[in-house]
C-alpha cells in the first residue's frame, strides 16, 4: 500500500482489525465482516469532477467532459450513464460542491423491495444489481435518494446505479472515485471508523462543520457519510428523513401474512359449517 492509498484509507493496522487477503476490505478479528463506506467531506471538495471521470472509466460509461463548467448551472441527478455527479450549490458560506451517488443504505429499501433478489446488499456494504431482474421498478419507487434508473430507451434495459465499485473492492482496489480524488475529500474505510473520524473532525473544528453527519442515522444509516459546513438542506440533501429503516415499514404486514394464511381459511370454514347447520 503506497502513501496515497494509505491516506485515503482508514483502519489499516488498527488493533483488532486486519485487512482481508485481497486488500482494502476489513475483517474483524473474529472473522466477521463490516460495512465499508466513504466519508465525503464537502468542505474539501473543489468541484474538479475527477471522480466523475474515474467512475465512467472504471465502469465503462461514456466519459464526461470535466473541463466544461456549464454543467454546474443546474442541479444534476445521476442517470443511467452517470453513476455519480458533482453539483455546485450557492450557500450562506459561498459555493459548495457536493458529490452525489448511491448512498448504499445499511438497510436498503431497494433490496427489500426486490422480488427476485436482483438488488443485493453485499456483506461489505455495496448494493449491487444482477441480470435476473424483472424490471418491475419497485426499487426505483422505494428509493428516497432517487438513485436507481432503468434504461427505458433500450429493448433490454438494465438498472444502472453506483455499485461502490464492488468488483474493484474484491480485487483489493479502492473505489475509482476515492482513488481519483486529488483533495482527499473522499476517504474509504469501515463505516464505524469513518464515523469516528467524522466526529473527530467536528470536535476539532467545531466552527468549520455543522454538527451533523449525514448518513449516520438517516433511514437506518448509510454507508456513505457526509460532512458539511452548511445545513444539509442548502446542499441538496433531504432533511425530512426519519431514522427508521424503510424496510421496517413493511415488516408488520409481512408478519401478518402467515397468520392470515392459516387463520382465515379456518374461520371461513367454521362460518361455512355454522350456516350449513342453521339451514338444515
Amino acid at each position: 500500500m503506497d502513501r496515497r492509498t494509505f491516506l485515503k484509507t482508514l483502519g489499516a493496522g488498527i488493533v483488532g482489525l486486519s485487512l482481508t487477503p485481497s486488500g482494502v476490505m476489513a475483517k474483524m478479528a473474529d472473522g466477521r465482516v463490516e460495512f465499508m463506506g466513504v466519508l465525503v467531506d464537502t468542505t474539501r471538495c473543489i468541484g474538479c469532477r475527477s471522480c466523475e471521470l474515474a467512475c465512467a472509466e472504471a465502469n465503462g460509461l461514456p466519459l464526461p467532459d470535466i473541463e466544461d463548467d456549464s454543467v454546474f448551472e443546474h442541479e444534476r441527478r445521476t442517470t443511467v450513464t452517470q453513476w455519480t455527479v458533482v453539483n455546485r450549490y450557492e450557500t450562506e458560506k459561498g459555493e459548495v460542491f457536493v458529490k452525489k451517488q448511491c448512498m448504499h443504505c445499511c438497510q436498503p429499501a431497494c433490496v427489500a423491495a426486490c422480488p427476485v433478489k436482483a438488488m443485493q446488499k453485499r456483506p461489505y456494504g455495496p448494493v449491487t444489481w444482477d441480470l435476473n431482474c424483472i424490471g418491475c421498478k419497485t426499487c426505483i419507487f422505494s428509493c428516497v435518494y432517487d438513485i436507481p434508473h432503468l434504461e427505458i430507451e433500450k429493448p433490454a434495459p438494465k438498472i444502472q446505479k453506483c455499485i461502490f465499485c464492488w468488483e474493484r473492492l474484491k480485487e483489493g482496489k479502492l473505489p475509482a472515485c476515492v482513488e481519483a480524488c486529488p483533495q482527499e475529500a473522499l476517504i474509504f474505510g469501515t463505516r464505524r471508523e469513518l464515523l469516528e473520524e467524522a466526529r473527530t473532525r467536528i470536535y476539532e473544528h467545531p466552527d468549520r462543520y455543522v454538527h451533523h453527519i449525514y448518513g449516520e442515522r438517516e433511514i437506518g444509516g448509510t454507508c456513505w457519510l457526509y460532512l458539511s459546513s452548511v445545513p444539509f438542506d442548502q446542499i441538496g440533501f433531504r432533511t425530512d428523513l426519519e431514522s427508521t429503516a424503510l424496510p421496517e415499514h413493511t415488516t408488520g404486514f409481512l408478519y401478518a401474512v402467515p397468520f392470515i394464511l392459516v387463520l382465515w381459511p379456518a374461520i371461513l370454514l367454521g362460518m361455512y359449517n355454522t350456516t350449513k347447520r342453521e339451514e338444515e
Partner: protein
Amino acid sequence: MQAAATREIRNLKDLVAFIRSELKPKGKILTPFNVITAPILAIGLGLIVYRFIFGLGTVVHEVPGFPWGIWIGFNIMSGVAFAGGAYVLTFVVYILRSEKYHPIIRPTVLNGFLAYLFYAGVIVVDCGRWWNITNPILGNKFGVNAVLFLIAWHFLLYMLTELVEFSPAIAEWLGLKKVRRILNSMTIGAVIFGITLSTLHQSGLGALIMMGKPNIHPLWWTEYIPVLFFVSSIFAGLSMVIFEGSISLRVFGRQMTEEYRREYPDIVVGLAKTCAAVMFVYLFLKALVLIHGRHWDLLNTPMGYWYLTEVVGLVLIPCLMFAKGVRSRNLTIIRVAALLTMAGIIINRCNYVFIAYKWYVPLSERYIPTLAETWIAFTVVLAHIWTFRWIVNRMPVYREVPEWAKEEEEEKIIRKEVAQWKASRM
C-alpha cells in the same frame, strides 16, 4: 347458443368442431361499439408489440424519479380493486349462503378472473425485463421478504382459484357432465382459498408502496395503508358489480330470465346498502388515521384540497348517495354513486403511485402519461370487455344453465334430503 345443451361431445373431434363453430362471431358485427373499439384495439395491440420489440422508452417518456404510471395506478392497482367484487360476493353467497346474490355470482367471478388476467398482464408490459417475469415463480433466487414476491404468487394462485370457481360454466358450455361434477365439488375450497388470497393481496398492493414513506405525501401515507386498501377493495368491487350489471342488463338483457330481471333491483339495492356501510367504515378509518397522523394543518394546502376532493367528493358523497338510493330505491342515484366511487378509487390508487407520490417535485418535472401509454391502458380495458362479451355470449353466465345441469343440481338436493331423512330415522 343452444348448441351446448343439445349437442353431445363424445370425443376430441367433436370438441374441436364445437369450439371452431363457437369461435365464429355471433350477432351483428357492425355495431357502433365494435366500429369504435375495434380500431382502438388493433392500434393498441400494435403498440404493445412495438413496445416489446423496441423497448419501454418508445411508448413511455422517461421521467426520472417516477418509475410507475397509469399502467400501475389505473390498470393494476385500480383494476385489482375493482375485481374485489368476486371475493366479496363468493363470501356472501357461499359462506354466508345468501341465495339472493346467487344470480350475479357468475358474471362477477368471470369479471374478476378477466380483470386479473388482463391487468396482471399489464405487469408484463410495464416490466422493463419482461422476459424474466417468471423469475419470482420459477427462478432460483426468491425475494421471499419482498411484498411484490408475495403479490406475484397470490396473483397467480388467485387467477387459478377464480378459474376453478368459474369452470363449471365452461363444463356446461362444453357439455362435460362428469367434469362439471368434479369442478363443482371444488367450488367451496376455491372460495375459501380465494377469499384468503384476496385479503392478502388486496392489502399487499398497499404494503407494496409503504416503503416509499418519505416519497408519499403525509396525508396519504399511514401504517394502515394495507387495511385501507383492503376495505376500499370491498366497495370498489361492489361498485364495479353495480356498474357492470347495469350495462349488462342493456347488452345481454335478452339472455336473462324474467326471474332475474324481477330480482335485479333488489340485488342492486342490497349491494348499495353494503357499499354505504363499508364506505362509512372506510371514512371512519380515514378520519382516525388523519387525527392520529396530526397532519390536519396540511389540509389547508393545495395537496390538502386534493385530498379532500378524494375523500369528501369521491367517498363521502357517493356513500351518502348510496344511502339515499337505498332508502328511495332509486337505481339511478345508486348507479351514479357507483361511478363516483370508482372514480374515487382510481384517483386514490393513482395518488399513491404518481400524484401524491413525490408531491414536492414541480409540475414541469412530473410524470404525465403519454398518448401511447394511455392508448395501451384503454386497449387492455377493451380487450377485457371483448373477452367478457365473447364468453357471456357462449357460456351460461347470465343465461340459464342447460337442462342437464339443472337436473343434476336437483338430484343433488334430493340425495341430500334422502340422506337427512335416513339419518333422522336412525
